[in-house]
């Protein structure tokens, strides 16, 4: 092989390598799947279970009302509420728990078979991705137990955060609580002014506009910096973990990379 041929070959190989690289990345993105949760919820066994729970709630309601009548102190009322809530949750787990577990195992099995690293809710994926709804329904409806895969899903370039947990970071929680108290006071004040307006639509409109402006201004002043800070922290953590996008936990059905703890730490 002469040098010129070799140089041409190397140049071609180099070009090919760089051209192929993004394609390889693009190919990785086929590991995103989605599911139509409404279709799963519409399965007869889920509907039957929901009807059972509704029936149970119908029986529980009069008992709860009677127990609340007998509860004299606030502590008694709280105890009664907790007791009935617990009863309801227990029944929910008894009735729906096995169905959810079967569906979850089916989702895991289909994901593993198709080598998917993350399954999201259909509503948030507007283009592409693999629809696994039918496969999951077939498994859920099929005979015999559904065996979940041994292996956990592979690393995903899609991350997620549990925003309800992020909101519990002390400085965020404190800011939110302060804002809610302030907003409630503003509302009371606006209501008083509304009553003073004595059915004058122009005055009422002005009061409402002022009230809305105050809320927006305060949100911009107090909450927006924290929202920006949180978003920056999410982007930074996601970047460090080589994630491409971060979505909310509630939209993730299976898999994905959980960065909630890292974001919480970054915000402390």
């Amino acid at each position, binding site marked *: 092989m002469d040098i010129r041929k070799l140089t041409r070959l*190397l140049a071609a190989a180099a070009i090919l390598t760089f051209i192929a690289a993004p394609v390889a990345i693009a190919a990785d993105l086929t590991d995103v799947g989605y599911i139509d949760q409404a279709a799963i919820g519409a399965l007869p066994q889920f509907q039957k279970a929901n009807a059972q729970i509704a029936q149970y709630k119908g029986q529980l309601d009069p008992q709860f009302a009677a127990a609340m009548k007998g509860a004299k102190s606030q502590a008694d009322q709280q105890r009664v509420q907790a007791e009935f809530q617990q009863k309801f949750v227990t029944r929910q787990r008894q009735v729906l728990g096995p169905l959810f577990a079967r569906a979850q195992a089916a989702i895991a099995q289909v994901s593993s078979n198709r080598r998917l690293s993350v399954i999201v809710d259909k509503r948030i994926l507007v283009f592409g991705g693999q629809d696994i709804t039918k496969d999951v329904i077939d498994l859920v409806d099929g005979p015999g137990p559904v065996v979940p895969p041994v292996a956990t899903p592979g690393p995903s370039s899609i991350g997620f955060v549990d925003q309800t947990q992020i909101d519990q970071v002390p400085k965020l929680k404190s800011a939110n609580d302060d804002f809610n108290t302030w907003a409630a006071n503003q509302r009371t004040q606006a209501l008083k002014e509304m009553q003073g307006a004595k059915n004058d639509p122009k005055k009422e409109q002005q009061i409402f506009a002022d009230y809305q402006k105050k809320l927006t201004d305060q949100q911009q002043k107090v909450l927006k910096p924290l929202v920006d800070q949180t*978003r920056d922290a999410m982007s*930074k953590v996601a970047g460090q973990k080589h994630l*491409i996008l971060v979505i909310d936990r509630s939209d993730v059905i299976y898999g994905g990379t959980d960065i909630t703890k890292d974001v919480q730490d970054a915000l402390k």
Partner: protein
Amino acid sequence: MRLSRAAAALLALLALGACAHQLKPDDPNVRGIGYVRVEDAIKKHPLYPQLSQLQDSIDALNLKALGAAAVPRTAAQIAQETQELNRELKAAQDRANSILRQKQLDYQQREQAAIRAALAAAGQGTDGSAPVSAMQNVTASQAQQVTAQANADFEAYQKSVIDQDNAAVRQISGQLSARADTAYRQRATQLQEKESQLGLEVSQQDAAKRLDLRMKLGNLAMSDAQRKQYRDQLAALDAREAAVVDAQRKKDQQELSAYQQQLRAQTSQQINAQAAKIHADTQAKLQARRNEVSRQVASQLQGLQPAAIPSNLPAATRGKLEQIDKQFKSQFQADAQKTIEEYQSTKSDLDAQYAALHGADGAATGAANKQVASLQRQRDDLYNRMVDQVKRDAQTVAAKRGLQVVFISVVAAPGGIDLTDDVEKDIESLQQ
């Protein structure tokens, strides 16, 4: 040999370089994944002002409903609130018209795309504009005209029925009040006659004694002390008679006052009962007409002319185009009907408030709450429609740019391709 080893090493190095190159999320070469910031894209939607308007109305009504105080309205306030209701009605009409126009554009574009695809599949080229122009038959302006005419008729009818209602209530109220006045006057006359009779009877009882006293007083040979004694006795007689009549008068006045209150309560009850009956009839008439208007609008929308398909196309293609046109027209009609029904629902709530304001529906409490619920439904429906539009545009953009996966509702995006600008441009072009 050495050269081959060097080449292999270089290839390995290049491959490593390529691997190291591929994992950075913000690398411009990371392609295949995109996302759209839906909330930002929606702000560029031509119907965003309508969405904001709906949200503002909901917030304002909620706040007002919480603080609604029972402050009596003056005539000027009633007039002002009537104007306000009319303004809201006009805003609802404009909103419905904008939504209808938008829907028409949307269906036109989708039908055009479907026709292009059908023509291309049939080897007839890809220009679907000529066949689609026939879609103009099913325009929102036609639907608007249908609705506007129906609404104008309904409003005229509503005004005449409410005027009749008010006149009937006034007449009934006048008749019943006059009857109560007559009964009161009759009773007062009876009592006065009774008092006069009593006065006469008491006077007759004392007539002999009074005559005797007067005769004695007529005697001139009488001491001053004697004369004073007779005069005092006569005055005592007068005072006793007056006291008896006065006591009876007071008793009669109490009875008359109680009777007047009883009459007022009865009259008020009768007026309310009659007015409630009249109002119920009025509401039934209005509801019947409202239903009739809805049926009429639906029927007129259904009756719009089919599209004229160009005759120079092959029969199979014409058949396909007719099918597409029928399908989109049917979808548009159903969708337009939904918008019209939503508008009618808002209008119905405003009508109830109008009727309450003008005294034709005392039982219209909760109309404002119903209006909030209705506006909320409209707001949600409009919002979902706008999100669907964003999704469709995102799909088109994603296909054009060769992406593999596109998300909405991302909370952070250190990598990936932001398609929001492209989608916004597409959405803004809808307005043009």
